């Protein structure tokens, strides 16, 4: 195992072993006790800390047979100094929905990663995958074989469906307005081909949040954001309200006055909610979870288009379907997504996310192409400029035309 190699000298990184927050340097050093690759990672990172630049090169095309995604190729630009990280490829492994594990599953991943890679991971990457950090090209196929043996598969990368992720949902949250775990597993299985074999203009992300608190940041980070909501009345337990007032909550100031739609009133004994004005923001429910709960007629708002800045600037998702029931097998949503993916694959430009595509062609035209009716819930307000592309207009009827029918 290369015990003859002296450990790298890392005075700068050693500084980051100090202090109360858990240290990533300690983690790399821990892995380095067994892995020459982790040892050279310390060396190359120390070099970056000295020089203030990174030392990794683009990956080129590496992967496992039959897949186009799931592996991020990475090579060192100083392989002569740090030969053990000359290749340092990452595998993205599709996490179980909600990030629940039994220890034997995690141990199986540790064992295979001890055999095939650096022994370093991220739990988890930003998109949600288990990240296995650093291995060589010739190890990829055998790592993949061991992964599937352990019941795991690769996640997405490149211009494909990226690994869908979801909040803890009904597994441990009373606010889940639909089964985010079931939906995420279902959609992941439905799009296996699209997830492993990139064929889109760019990436396409799904994120499923069970309520408007949006714990997986679906509205900011997913091309398709599925955010739980309800459309009947907030459920109130008046007796439990009393408990909150006794425990320091000022219902008037902390709840009613913080309500963005000002739809609540409190007379010191009873809370009244004018539900027809409620925007389902969750504040009152967050403040008093024992007393207030989302309504019983539950589903989701479907929003589209959010992304980080590259290329045309950051975007938040916007409303596509104001309310959809979310029950297996999610046929309505799958059909809608199918139409969106077909259209965008056909007409999107290279590296154009679906949100940017909609900006380019116009939401109105996009809706028409996927067969959705325009609704006022989709906009913050109607247009402010008069430059309408009218497609329908009257023509003077030819004189004889009115007499043709008889």
């Amino acid at each position: 195992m290369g015990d003859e190699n002296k450990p790298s000298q890392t005075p700068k990184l050693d500084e980051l072993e100090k202090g109360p927050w858990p240290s990533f340097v300690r983690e790399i050093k821990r892995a380095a006790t067994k892995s020459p690759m982790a040892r050279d990672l310390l060396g190359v990172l120390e070099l970056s800390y000295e020089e203030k630049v990174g030392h990794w090169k683009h990956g080129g095309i590496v992967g496992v047979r039959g897949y186009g995604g799931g592996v991020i190729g990475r090579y060192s630009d100083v392989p002569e100094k740090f030969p053990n990280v000359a290749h340092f490829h990452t595998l993205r492994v599709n996490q179980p929905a909600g990030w629940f594990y039994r220890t034997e599953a995690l141990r199986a991943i540790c064992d295979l990663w001890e055999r095939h890679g650096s022994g370093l991971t991220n739990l988890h990457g930003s998109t949600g995958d288990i990240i296995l950090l650093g291995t060589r090209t010739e190890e990829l196929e055998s790592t993949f074989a061991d992964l599937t043996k352990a019941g795991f598969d690769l996640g997405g990368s490149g211009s494909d469906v990226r690994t869908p992720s979801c909040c803890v949902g009904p597994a441990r949250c009373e606010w889940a307005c639909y089964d985010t775990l079931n939906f995420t597993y279902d959609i992941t299985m439905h799009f296996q081909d699209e997830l492993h074999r990139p064929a889109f203009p760019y990436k396409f992300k799904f994120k499923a949040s069970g309520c408007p608190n949006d714990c997986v940041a679906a509205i900011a980070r997913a091309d398709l954001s599925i955010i739980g909501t309800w459309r009947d009345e907030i459920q109130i337990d008046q007796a439990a309200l009393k408990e909150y007032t006794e425990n320091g909550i000022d219902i008037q100031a902390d709840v009613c006055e913080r309500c963005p739609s000002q739809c609540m009133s409190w007379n010191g004994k009873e809370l009244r909610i004018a539900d027809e004005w409620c925007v389902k923001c969750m504040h009152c429910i967050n403040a008093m979870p024992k007393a207030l709960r989302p309504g019983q007629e539950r589903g989701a708002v479907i929003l589209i288009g959010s992304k980080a800045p590259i290329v045309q600037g950051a975007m938040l998702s916007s409303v596509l379907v104001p309310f959809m029931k979310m029950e297996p097998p999610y046929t309505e949503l799958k059909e809608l997504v199918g139409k969106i993916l077909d259209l965008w694959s056909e007409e999107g430009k290279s590296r154009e996310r679906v949100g940017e595509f909609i900006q380019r062609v116009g939401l109105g035209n996009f809706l028409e192409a996927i067969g959705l009716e325009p609704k006022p819930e989709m906009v913050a307000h109607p247009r402010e400029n008069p430059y309408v592309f009218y497609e329908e207009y009257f023509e003077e009827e030819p004189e004889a035309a009115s007499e043709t029918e008889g």
Partner: protein
Amino acid sequence: MADTVAERKTDIGPPHYEKFLPPVVKANYGKWKYHEIVQPGVLVHVAESGDKLYTVRAGTPRLLSIQTIRELCDLADTYSDGYLRFTSRHNIEFLLTDPDKVGPLIIELTTRGFPVGGTANAISSMVHTQGWIHCHSAATDASGIVKSVMDELIGHFQTMELPAKLRLALACCLNMCGAVHCSDIAILGIHRRPPKVDQEKLSKICEIPTVVASCPTAAIRPKRINGKETVEVIEEQCMFCGNCYTVCPAMPLSNALNDGVSIWVGGKVSNARHAPMFSKLAIPYLPNNPPRWPEVVAAVKNIVEVWAKDARKYERMGEWIERIGWPRFFQKTGIPFTKQHIDDFRHAGLTYQRSVHIKS
């Protein structure tokens, strides 16, 4: 290897989540009634059935060795019947049914260096990217800054005394794999010089029309240099987004002297009270100063402290700034307002102050 090939499976997808749900979760799936926060980092969820589930949440460095994962698994075997989960912000959660095990688990985690907390009006773990550990386009390191900032702010992870939640995130370049653009405070690595075209390499490994088309400001033009088809960059048109480098490795824009960090404030993703918001620029540039980035740590700490002192109960960073106004934000934090703060990208005019609503 022959048997490996014979057994080769593809497209099996992730393991089904039901295999990993503790019995108490399976029994009460979708039937949770309410929850309470018992103490920082400890939640109790109560089901319609009366069953109780205790969650103990702890911070991690996100980058974990297999040795540490096994150590955490040992804890889960001892305290939570072999079940555990992770959160979207890289915290680890142990799921317990026996309240008597909560205290000993907290002691065990704390002793091993995993701080318990991150609940309610606290700073949770920072979402962040790879930085110099793995990324080709990083303008700064990720883990090093996160560690330095959290060392300073850990007290707010372990208590719940802030006005509201505070979500910190870091992305090491404008690609924002960490999608930091809707965080209360975002730390963003920035390049500040145009790409240096490697003419020799470019003609061999990149498609010129793709490189030209990749530039959102049309700053890249095809050009023949010394008989080779390559490109040139109109430097004053470059906004350092790095999109060209992502499609063509012969356009590197890392620059040790000029790369650094910017700070953004006031974003949120939750719909609670105010609708979701983008973060806005607070500090255009701070230097890369490893290993501990003292300027970045001080800047973040200052913003947190000013907000914590001034904001009303439940007011997230962005809600607070909206109430007091941006002039007061810059005044109270002592951050200078500069030309760089004024948007000049698409629809910039929408960000100008278009009223005379000005506090004196």
